[in-house]
């Protein structure tokens, strides 16, 4: 649960009290049963100035990440709204906010004139926080977070739109947007360490220390920009409306991932060390980063048409063509120091890694350049038919033709170090990659709705995606000779459901769904059976959603929702299973890869025991587990895996009440608990997440004058995280104050 939510949206929570009631007794009115005027009726134009102090004990980065707010707090204009009718039928609307500390800004203005047009422009920016954590080993409490855990990314959007809507003439719209994502966020691509206290558990005898595990925190620098310029013309000819758009899009991203492996470690020289140190043998500190630049230019032409053939039949069709080009650049230098001669002497190797000698490619590379060209032609056609007043049928067919060709070249770095002499041998090699993908997707869709039964509506929908295609690739070659693979997708999705409203006190809904997806891959590397890569990946998921809203008493409403989903996945063979050259396993024989089940039950109680008090309670319980290789792997295979459990429950309680004629008070409590942390797999990283969070706030809102509203809130937050071994626990005391002036 987050602080900003607690301190800024409790009014919204309470609003749902009203809304939930309206959905049940729809025919009733929402008139307050009061003999006194409501002093808190929303104002049309206002400005809210607010500030919040956060006093955090414990991990400040975790507080920021979980609560979406700066560790010290924020202040400024929380909300501004202004709307006014001007001369000559013009209307102006403006809204915004500027919260310094949270770097949360919005400035938005809209000027419009009926049957003439409008101008809409704005700038928004908000910040998200990350805690820069890595993995945790309970056995020796190994924990390697980033030195600077205070990470954040700012997301901004600048837009301007002008529309001309003159009567009986085509509507013209031009829109420009410029979006950015800039900052540093954490990554789950964790690096290696030998300091886990775990004995070696592999046959790699070259590692004399402990087995390495990958729990070192890592991070990404984001520098992403996206611009779009869109022009649209729309006109209605008789009963046919036609819309045409041209959309230009540019994406310019330079993202850098920082890789830290074996920090603080240095493998000693001498002894039985081999003359050459290879990638797989090193446990010296390795620092590196991976930079990838992507520049995309895309141009899209879009035409859509909808025609009313009769009162009961509407037909539509559309065509979209997109052409895009993308340029790649990048490098991945990894640097380490390797002991030579004696332990006191180290030779710095600028580039490190190895493809040519069997290391995992690409360990280190440079001079990466390449590009991609893509064409996508999409068309759809459909018809919506009201067969009778109570039966609606909607059909559509979509066809999509996709062609993408990509290629690039790079230099894999391979530097071998003679530990005795310190001589470095450069074995770097240049290679290239390429791919060509074609797809022709056919997607029919059918939707039916029937409302002929009293108080009941029933509906069903089905869509089927059939995609024959090819996927040709060339990997680490000097010739760009593509291997061929036939790829086929067959995805069926089906849903049926019903709603029942027998009276004003009960609403019931049921929906069940079934998905059956089959993906076939048939690669022809050569004519030899063992060179064929053939498999089918299938998944079948089904589930049910049940909802019931019951007005138990005129002042008490219960809403319950239950979501159940179960599914299985399997990896099978195309035709006769191909037996691998090795004897350790049978390739591509049919095998169940996953068996999952999830149940989620949610409950909301809205209660107004007396007119001066409202109460809303929410409870959400999830049971979610998925089984893959455990326990059927057997033996030591079970040392490294457990089922994926994602069970949790969370709850909230909101109580609001009248204090005096111009004062309201509100109490809110939230609780979250996950208890899936499994540390018994001591040889590998623990499975599952465990955490316990709770928050409590008390708020008082008082109308100081007819147009001046003050609010004061104080709160307490606590977070305990088993997944990170308690290293990201925190408590916080927060205080918030706001003044809203209506005008």
């Amino acid at each position, binding site marked *: *649960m987050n602080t*900003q*939510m607690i301190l800024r949206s409790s009014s919204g929570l309470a*609003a*749902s009290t*009203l809304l939930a009631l309206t959905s049940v007794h729809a025919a009733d009115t*929402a008139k*307050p049963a*009061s003999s*006194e005027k409501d002093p808190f*009726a929303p104002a049309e134009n206002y400005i809210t100035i607010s500030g919040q102090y956060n006093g955090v*004990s*414990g991990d400040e980065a975790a507080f920021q990440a*979980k609560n979406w707010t700066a560790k010290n707090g924020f202040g400024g204009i929380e909300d501004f709204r202004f709307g006014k009718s001007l001369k000559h039928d013009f209307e102006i609307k403006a809204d915004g906010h500027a919260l310094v500390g949270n770097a949360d800004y919005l400035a938005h203005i809209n000027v419009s004139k009926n049957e003439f047009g409008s101008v809409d422009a704005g700038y928004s920016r908000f910040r998200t926080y990350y805690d820069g954590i890595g993995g945790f080993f309970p056995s020796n409490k190994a924990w390697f977070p980033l030195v600077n855990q205070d990470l954040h990314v700012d997301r901004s959007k600048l837009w301007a739109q002008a529309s001309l809507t003159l009567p009986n003439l085509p509507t013209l719209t031009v829109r420009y947007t410029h979006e950015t994502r800039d900052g540093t966020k954490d990554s*789950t*691509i*964790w690096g*290696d360490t030998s300091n886990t206290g775990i004995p070696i558990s*592999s046959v790699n005898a070259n590692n004399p220390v402990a087995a390495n595990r990958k729990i070192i925190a*890592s991070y990404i620098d984001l520098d*992403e920009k996206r611009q779009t310029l869109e022009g649209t013309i729309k006109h209605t000819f008789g009963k046919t409306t036609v819309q045409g758009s041209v959309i230009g899009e540019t994406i310019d991203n330079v993202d850098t991932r920082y890789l830290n492996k074996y920090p603080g470690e240095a493998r000693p020289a001498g002894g039985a060390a081999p003359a050459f140190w290879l990638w797989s043998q090193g446990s010296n500190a390795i620092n590196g980063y991976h930079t990838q630049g992507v520049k995309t230019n895309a141009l899209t032409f*879009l035409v859509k048409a909808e025609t009313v053939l009769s009162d009961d039949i509407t037909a539509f069709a559309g065509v979209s063509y997109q052409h895009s080009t993308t340029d790649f650049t990048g490098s991945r230098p990894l640097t380490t120091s390797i002991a030579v001669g004696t332990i006191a002497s180290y030779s710095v190797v600028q580039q490190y890694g190895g493809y040519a000698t069997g290391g995992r490619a690409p360990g280190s590379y440079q001079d*990466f350049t*390449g590009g991609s060209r893509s064409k996508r032609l999409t068309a759809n056609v459909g018809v919506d038919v009201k067969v009778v007043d109570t039966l609606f049928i909607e059909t559509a067919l979509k066809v999509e033709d996709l062609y993408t060709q*990509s*290629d690039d070249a790079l230099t894999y770095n391979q530097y071998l170090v003679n530990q005795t002499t310190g001589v470095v041998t450069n074995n770097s090699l240049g290679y290239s990659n390429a*791919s060509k993908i074609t797809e022709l997707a056919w997607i*029919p869709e059918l939707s039916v709705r029937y409302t002929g039964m*009293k*108080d009941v509506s029933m509906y069903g929908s089905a869509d089927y995606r059939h995609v024959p295609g090819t996927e040709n690739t060339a990997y680490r070659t000097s010739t760009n000779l593509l291997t061929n693979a036939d*790829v086929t997708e067959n995805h069926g999705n089906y849903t049926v459901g019903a709603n029942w*409203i*027998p009276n004003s006190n009960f609403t019931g809904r049921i929906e069940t769904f079934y998905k059956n997806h089959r*993906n076939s891959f048939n690669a022809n590397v050569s004519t030899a059976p063992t060179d064929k890569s053939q498999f089918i990946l299938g998944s079948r998921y089904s589930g049910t959603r049940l909802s019931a809203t019951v007005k138990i008493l005129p002042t008490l409403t219960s809403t319950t929702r239950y979501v159940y989903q179960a599914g299985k996945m399997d*990896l099978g063979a195309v035709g006769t299973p191909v037996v691998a050259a090795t*004897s*350790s*396993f*049978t390739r591509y024989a049919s*095998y169940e*890869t996953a068996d*999952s089940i999830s149940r*989620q039950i949610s409950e*909301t109680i809205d209660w107004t025991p007396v*007119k001066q008090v409202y109460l809303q309670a*929410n409870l*959400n319980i999830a049971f979610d587990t998925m089984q*893959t290789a455990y326990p*059927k792997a*057997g033996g030591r295979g079970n040392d*490294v895996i457990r089922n*994926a459990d*994602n069970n*949790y429950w969370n709850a909230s309680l909101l109580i609001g009440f009248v204090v*005096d004629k111009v004062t309201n008070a509100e109490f809110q409590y939230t609780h*979250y608990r996950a208890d899936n942390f499994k540390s018994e797999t001591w040889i*590998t990283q623990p499975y599952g997440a465990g*955490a316990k969070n709770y928050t409590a706030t008390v708020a008082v809102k008082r109308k100081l004058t007819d147009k001046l509203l003050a609010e004061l809130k104080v709160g307490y937050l*606590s977070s*305990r995280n088993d997944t990170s071994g308690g290293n990201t626990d925190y408590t916080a005391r927060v205080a918030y104050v706001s003044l809203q002036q209506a005008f």
Partner: protein
Amino acid sequence: MITKPRSWSKNTFLFGGVSLWAVLLISCTMVDRAIVAPPHIAGASFVGDKECAQCHEETVKGFEHSTHAKLKVQGENAKGLGCESCHGPGSTHVQAGGGMGSIVNPGKSPEACFQCHLDKRGEFSLPNSHPVMSGKMTCTECHDPHKGKAIKGGAGHLTSEKETCTECHTAQKGPFVFEHNAMREGCTTCHNPHGTVNQKMLVQRDSNLCLKCHLQHPAVDGNATIIAGGEDHRTRMQNGTCWVSGCHEAVHGSNVSKPLRY
């Protein structure tokens, strides 16, 4: 610097609880005023979709073909179903000739959506979620309740579901020289965009996430191997997840490595 968190004592709850109830009891007996939290539409009643169409014709027309239209039921019991299910009773808004203060705007708060989608309240309240509860994002940025499918794109629509995500997450959009075929199934194969207990909103936080598609048949059941990509990954899985440094890092696609490394 990490310091040991302090916790509340029983006295805190005892004192707080007693105080709360005392104030509550006093207010109930002293004040004759109802509390309905803002945004409150004082004295409003339901007017039906036809009234809304007087000004919002395009929106009401489009709603007939939206996902939410399938909830509409004929009969007096469902009179308020439609626009006012989410925007609240609209008579005051109609009488005022429009205006922001006289109608509920779900686009500013997820609470209107949560009244039916209660489970999403629970998911958005998890430690790893999109910032909807803090007001930095809204449900309508990814869903269109007024027209077409609530989950944008896919099936017979000109756009794909994936485009909803890659509009912001452009780095994951591709194209890549070497694609991860899971991207064809969609982002939700690995992520729950509403929120999960795991970092990056992953539906599983460990190797099971990958094994659910990539686990292959061993030579003999229970022979202690975990086969993926034609190789035994048991010892590699000791290191951590499949996408840790040096392994299959480029889970969304790679331009340099067919086994999906950066």
